[in-house]
């Protein structure tokens, strides 16, 4: 397993009268080389959870094991640098983190911090920028001259340039238009092909179905489910209501058909699956 949470509890201001407990007894596994999606309503603890993967937060109790690195409440700040080298983290609206004079310099920031020589960092940055389709003509420009979509891709490159074996993303597609979203899903697939472990938070179930091998559902700071998308999205409808979770659009459509008396043999999760089922149904 690339990432294992063992009985992790987390609360802000632990030990004071104002302590607010955010995560309760989290035990999960995220398999190596696979794509894990984390879903759940806003405020269910998803962002707090992923900040434990690279030690931005430390568990109040329990431990997190990331590729052999053990993180617990008494892990020293100095040790974390080796963990952060393994784990690339992309936050929501990552374009807000850009700072350097040029696009290239910004992308070189992480590898340089991790002790890579300037030349190698430059090479890594160029490769990363190419991978996320940032045109070479932009490399010497200031990141603040770029469009929003380009800035997002530069920020992604900034995480990929240090060649992390695990990539964690918090709603990477938020605010992107349809094409930008599709490009991002392609990138996620590509990262998997390169052998990386990918973890991402998403509110869009269609994205989850499109790329995830494994889904973790969070609800009020606890793990409500961890299983394959296929198993998960075939659960009963009432369960989704209590979790405040939606079905993928194909599943929603199938439910509407069922209400009108058209019953499909099983709940489809993608557009293609849905259309095939309907075509078969209509033929017979």
């Amino acid at each position: 397993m690339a990432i294992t949470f063992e009985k992790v509890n987390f609360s802000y201001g632990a030990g004071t009268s104002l302590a607010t407990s955010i995560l309760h007894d989290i035990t999960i596994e995220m398999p190596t080389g696979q794509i894990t999606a984390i879903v759940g309503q806003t405020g269910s603890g998803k962002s707090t959870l992923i900040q434990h993967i690279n030690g931005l937060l430390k568990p109040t109790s329990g431990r997190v094991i990331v590729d052999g690195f053990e993180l617990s409440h008494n892990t020293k700040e100095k040790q974390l640098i080796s963990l952060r080298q393994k784990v690339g983290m992309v936050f929501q609206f990552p374009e807000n983190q850009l700072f350097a004079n040029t696009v290239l310099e910004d992308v070189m920031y992480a590898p340089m911090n991790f002790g890579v020589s300037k030349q190698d960092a430059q090479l890594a940055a160029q490769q990363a920028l190419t991978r996320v389709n940032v045109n070479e003509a932009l490399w010497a420009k200031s990141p603040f001259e770029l469009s929003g979509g380009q800035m997002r891709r530069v920020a992604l490159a900034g995480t990929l340039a240090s060649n992390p074996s695990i990539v964690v993303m918090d709603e990477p597609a938020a605010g992107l238009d349809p094409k930008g979203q599709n490009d991002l899903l392609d990138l996620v697939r590509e990262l998997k092909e390169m052998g990386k472990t990918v973890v991402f938070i998403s509110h869009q179930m269609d994205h989850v179905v499109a790329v995830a091998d494994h889904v973790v559902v969070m609800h009020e700071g606890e793990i409500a489910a961890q299983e394959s998308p296929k198993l998960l999205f075939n659960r009963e409808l009432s369960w989704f209501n209590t979790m405040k979770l939606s079905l993928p659009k194909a599943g929603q459509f199938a439910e509407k058909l069922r209400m009108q008396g058209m019953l499909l043999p099983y709940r489809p999760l993608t557009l293609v699956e849905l259309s095939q089922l309907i075509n078969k149904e209509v033929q017979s």
Partner: protein
Amino acid sequence: MIEAIKINNLKYSYQGSQQLFDDFNLTIQVGQWVALVGHNGSGKSTLAKLILGLIVANSGDIDVFGERLSVATVNHVRAQIGMVFQNPDNQFVGATVADDVAFGLENMQKPSSEMPKLIDEALEIVGMQAFKNREPHMLSGGQKQRVALASVLALNPKIIILDEATAMLDPEGRDMVMQTLQKLKARFGSELTLITITHDMDEASLADRVVVINDGKLILDGEPATVFSERDIMHSNGLELPFAGELLAKLDKRPNSYLDERELVQWLSHLKK
């Protein structure tokens, strides 16, 4: 008949860069709900800023209710248009929900004694009166956007423009805002012209009319059913159809014309019977 907005031969270019709008024309009737759609960078948000006079066109005319936009009229024109922006945090001026709604009223120099009633009314329309004394950081994104809408409604605008107002929200927040818009439209009918700028087609399909823009050019314009029948054109402009539209294209047996989701479900279930 006077149009709500009439744009004639509009030309606009960013400082030093290429032409964004070149002889752009668009007319919006009073009481219409128009969805202005296009991919990021297509120029749709720029258009909204031009209408409000936040940026100035190189040439061409913009008329709002027959009044030509100019330096002299810009304040009067703005007084008739309300706008909700993308980022919920960056348009929350007041320290509490009530203070935020009050901000516009204070600018309009409404007497203090009338304000509580106007604030309550506006918050009631968007269903936020229970949150009157809350501070912004205690609200969700969807709630903040509804407050932004209330702040605009309190000023009694004839036109409301929502510039990607749901882009930064989670699905729950998005649904909240869209439901509020539908309620608004049902309540004010032809008294309110609504312009929603978006790249979410499920959102656009709620409008009376969909206008597709790319590179500052008008690509498609018509009722949702008409626009969404043009799947290839939509795709080549970086947009998708609403889910039902994409499904339609993949069915062996298809209806004669475009159907929205509800209609398609009906049609399919009848087919089976």
